[in-house]
């Protein structure tokens, strides 16, 4: 039973990690594509249209990968988490089915039209199809996060005698106090990722001294979008989320922040330190007193409940992983803000395109927004443990009762092998597209 839960969790974590590489780019990128296309309609400068079409190619590759790695997510609810599906399907089935019907359809139908229809439809309709792709991808995020918000902070339900969760109030699913902050935070974080990708491709073109005109446009747009989004990710949306965790999941909050013991006179904020689970303290700690209490409650000396006040069964089961995920996310977010602010400053002083060191930095920083997004997702998911539905349904109660751990291990290995192949092919394809550039030579 124990290893069964372990393999199920590992498989879900692995497949969703790989899956989430793709939608986090497409959600943000669709916004930038709409921006490029809209600019083109206003100023009729050809390079904006090239940019929109070029990034739609990158979008399409990512979208395909997102589809083929997304279908396993839907399947896994039934295959590996059958008890969870049975008990909660009447509720989260609503949001998941809506995702399929309202957003996925929109996105995939109009993506084809955007790619093939520019000549057929004319420019205004082409912009409209691009906008509908954007709408579809953001609606997708909305419904997925509505599903996740319900698991983090269940609302609008009733539990029957047989343990089944029954929907009692449909609109509660979308007025869930967890949902809006999580959605905004998530979408802005995906804008950060795509801004870095756009800026990085721009930096690459400038450094390589090919397609320089496009490169400058990409870099400039990426930096401006990147600066705005990386600030908004932290404040107000990141802050708003942290307050929600403190309010609704205090045990997770204590573990995230590394607060082992309750301090009555206000809690410090931990910048660096390693959780020592044996001695229940942080090693090598650097912390600033009272800041956490202020950030959370706007009161310097407000008490924050530490992990000592919770039963062991209520605490997340992997505190170091949760703590590190959270701190890596926050740390990287700070780095992004700094880099983007510096770049924007140099852009304003007209020096950015010649500052080689910064261009190299931007180019190679690309994996890190992905890491920040993923660790953000881990923070939410590890924080919810040991529950699937917070406070109500334990993870151990959600797995499929008839599937043996050998089968799960077998399929896990299969997914690992298949996704390695996919990842390799993805890199080759994206590399090829970037190398060809927005204006490939006619042959």
């Amino acid at each position, binding site marked *: 039973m124990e290893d069964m839960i372990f393999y199920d969790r590992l498989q879900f974590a692995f497949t969703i990690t790989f899956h989430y590489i793709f939608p986090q780019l497409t959600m943000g990128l669709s916004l930038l594509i709409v921006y490029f296309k809209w600019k083109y309609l206003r100023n009729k400068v050809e390079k904006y249209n090239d940019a929109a079409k070029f990034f739609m190619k990158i979008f399409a590759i990512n979208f395909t990968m997102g589809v083929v790695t997304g279908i396993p997510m839907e399947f896994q609810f039934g295959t590996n988490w059958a008890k969870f*599906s*049975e008990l909660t*399907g009447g509720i989260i089935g609503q949001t998941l089915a809506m995702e399929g019907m309202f957003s996925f359809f929109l996105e995939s139908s109009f993506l084809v039209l955007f790619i093939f229809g520019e000549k057929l439809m004319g420019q205004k309709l082409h912009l409209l199809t691009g906008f509908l792709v954007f709408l579809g991808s953001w609606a997708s995020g909305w419904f997925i996060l509505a599903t996740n918000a319900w698991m983090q902070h269940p609302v609008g339900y009733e539990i029957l005698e047989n343990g089944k969760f029954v929907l009692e109030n449909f609109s509660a699913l979308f007025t869930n106090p967890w949902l809006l902050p999580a959605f905004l935070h998530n979408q802005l974080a995906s804008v950060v990722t795509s801004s870095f990708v756009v800026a990085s491709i721009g930096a690459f073109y400038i450094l390589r001294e090919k397609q320089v005109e496009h490169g400058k446009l990409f870099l400039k747009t990426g930096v401006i979008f990147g600066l705005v989004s990386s600030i908004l990710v932290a404040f107000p949306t990141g802050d708003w989320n942290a307050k929600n965790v403190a309010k609704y999941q205090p045990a997770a909050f204590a573990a995230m922040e590394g607060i082992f013991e309750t301090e009555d006179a206000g809690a410090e904020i931990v910048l660096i330190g390693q959780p020592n689970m044996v001695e229940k303290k942080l090693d090598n700690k650097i912390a600033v007193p009272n800041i956490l209490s202020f950030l959370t409650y706007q009161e310097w000396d407000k008490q924050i409940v530490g992990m000592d006040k919770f039963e062991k069964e209520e605490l997340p089961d992997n505190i170091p992983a949760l703590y590190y995920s959270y701190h890596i996310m926050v740390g990287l977010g700070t780095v992004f803000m700094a880099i983007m602010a510096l770049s924007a400053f140099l852009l304003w002083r007209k020096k950015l395109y010649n500052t080689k060191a910064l261009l190299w930095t931007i180019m190679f920083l690309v994996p890190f927004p992905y890491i920040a997004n993923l660790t953000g997702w881990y923070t939410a998911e590890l924080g919810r443990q040991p529950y699937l539905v917070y406070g109500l349904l334990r993870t151990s109660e959600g797995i499929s009762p*008839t599937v043996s751990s050998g089968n799960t291990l077998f399929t896990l290995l299969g997914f690992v092998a298949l996704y390695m192949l996919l990842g390799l092919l993805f890199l080759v394809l994206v590399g090829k597209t970037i190398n060809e550039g927005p204006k490939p030579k006619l042959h």
Partner: protein
Amino acid sequence: MEVLWYILIAIVLAVFFILDGYDFGTGIIHLFLAKTEKDKEVIAKSAGLFWDSNEVWLVAAGGMLFMAFPTFYASVFSGFYLPLILVLWLIIFRAIGLELRGQFKFQMWKDIWDKSFGVSSLLLALFFGIALGNIVRGVNLGGVDNGVSVHEGHYFFLPLWDGSFSPLTEHPGVIDWFTIIIGLISVVTLAIHGANWIILKTNSTINLKLKRVIFRLNIALAILTVFSLFVWQIVNPNSLDNFINKPYLIVFPIIYLTGLIGLFFIKKIKNDNHAFALSSLLIVGGITSSLASLFPVILPSVNDTHEPLTIYNTAASEYGLSVAMYWGIIGFILLFVYMIIQKRMMKGKIDHMDYGH
């Protein structure tokens, strides 16, 4: 309300098999009949331009099933664990085959992804048929051992096969001689459907040959159909009860027969749309007839200890189903609107279209 959702999901599934069905079919044709590079490219394109918007219908069907009949979803997905994961992998292989073949010009690259597309399409068509075979045959619900239930009543687990390959044992596997027959029917049906799609959408040089192939496949299908009706009686003796008690259900087998008989005249059919419509009737008729023979059961039980799964004992709450009906209808209309817009914009032959994002 359960019945309404059941019908909606059946429609979505049928649309999925009509749309993605031709993708599987083109893959099968591609594997066996496409010889020249030009034909290979055009045929792959006739599926490649559409597969991702067709796949959406599978995702929608899955989501609706999850929402409306969560107990069924949980039971079937964990019970058919291995075949479903294999289906997932095949779907991925088919998709990457289609997306990648045109990306590089050298021959080995194309050959690899052509085979990946063809073989996974063939296996998917087979597996979907086998899945249908499992549903009409029923499974050993509750995992009864010596008359005692091992799991809760609505759970089970099926190995891919057991040594006997017989559907009549106490613990039949996913693959047995009965489900293989249904699997073959599915392969032949989708091959016909795919061939019709190729004729409809492309100017390949093999289009004339395909009409002959369809005619021959149709003969094979007629023989298989009669044979399957016979063995179906052995596997599930009650399979005709519904049609006797509710004679109006016979409309579904008639839909199937119309498609089957119509396709015998394939060489005379001038309008390619009509031919495609006939093979669509085959698919719709086949799926709905199977479902109608079981209704309201959705998964029969092969033991006497446990009740079969029905749309009533697996459904979500009445409130959930009715509130979802509001957005479901809107979503449903939107789906069709998108599909029509898209098909209209991409109507006609696709040979000239530039493929490869």
